[in-house]
């Protein structure tokens, strides 16, 4: 079995999570529990999910991420996905995936800006 670490760092009012390049299903499931645990522990305003290392964004991964962002929203937090590669964006769109209204940002910097000054029209549904 592979043992892949999810990096999870608290930065001011935010929790920054970095996904490993090729996460197995167990890692993706663990990610959900880790993130919600961090929400309770650190009480951040939001969650920045950095997927710049991720090469395979399949339907299982997308489902876990949209579900997690909904759970984070239920707890009172905002999720921003950042760092998606062009090839991943092309593939995910052709596969038919949507991110169900999760905010996205090109860089971690912009994701932090977005959480600090949320745009009123771009709220999580």
């Amino acid at each position, binding site marked *: *079995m*592979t043992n892949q670490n999810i990096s999870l760092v608290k930065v001011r009012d935010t929790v920054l999570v970095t996904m490993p390049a*090729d996460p*197995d*299903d*167990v890692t993706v499931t663990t990610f959900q529990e880790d993130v919600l645990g961090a929400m309770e522990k650190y009480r951040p305003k939001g969650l920045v999910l950095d997927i710049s290392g991720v*090469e*395979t*964004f*399949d*339907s*299982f991964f*997308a*489902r876990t991420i949209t579900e997690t962002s909904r759970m984070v929203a239920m707890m009172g937090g905002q999720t921003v996905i950042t760092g998606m*590669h*062009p*090839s*991943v964006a*092309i*593939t*995910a769109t*052709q*596969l*038919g*995936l949507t991110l169900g209204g999760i905010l996205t940002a090109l860089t971690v910097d912009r994701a932090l800006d977005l959480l600090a000054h949320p745009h009123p029209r771009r709220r999580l549904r």
Partner: protein
Amino acid sequence: MSDLTRGNVPIKSENDIVVARRVVRDVATQLCFGVTDVTRVITAASELARNVFLYAGEGVMRWCTFDRAGAVALELTFEDDGAGIPDIELAMKPGYSTSRGLGLGLPGAKRLMDEMEIHSEVGNGTTVTVRKWLRK
């Protein structure tokens, strides 16, 4: 990299989905597919390998590369001895799923690849073959 013409990956656990993705990445990269096509093929393989694990419990991914009239293709075949698909047309409908999934695996994989064939018989398993041609 071992034999560059054919091989197979048994799919018996969730971790084998990762192994299948890695093998496909290596083969597609060595064939000189562009980064977007490599990502497409890996993602399609991930969906189809997960289907094998999810619906049949186990199976195998066979891969091969071949040449036809000077064009090079990567072919992936996913075989299982599971329950089979009663209605392939319905299974190809985006959003249709008999599990908790999004129902994007089969139709999505077809869009990501150039060709797809499904052979399935209720009680006799399923074989899904997909192909991607290398564009020059």
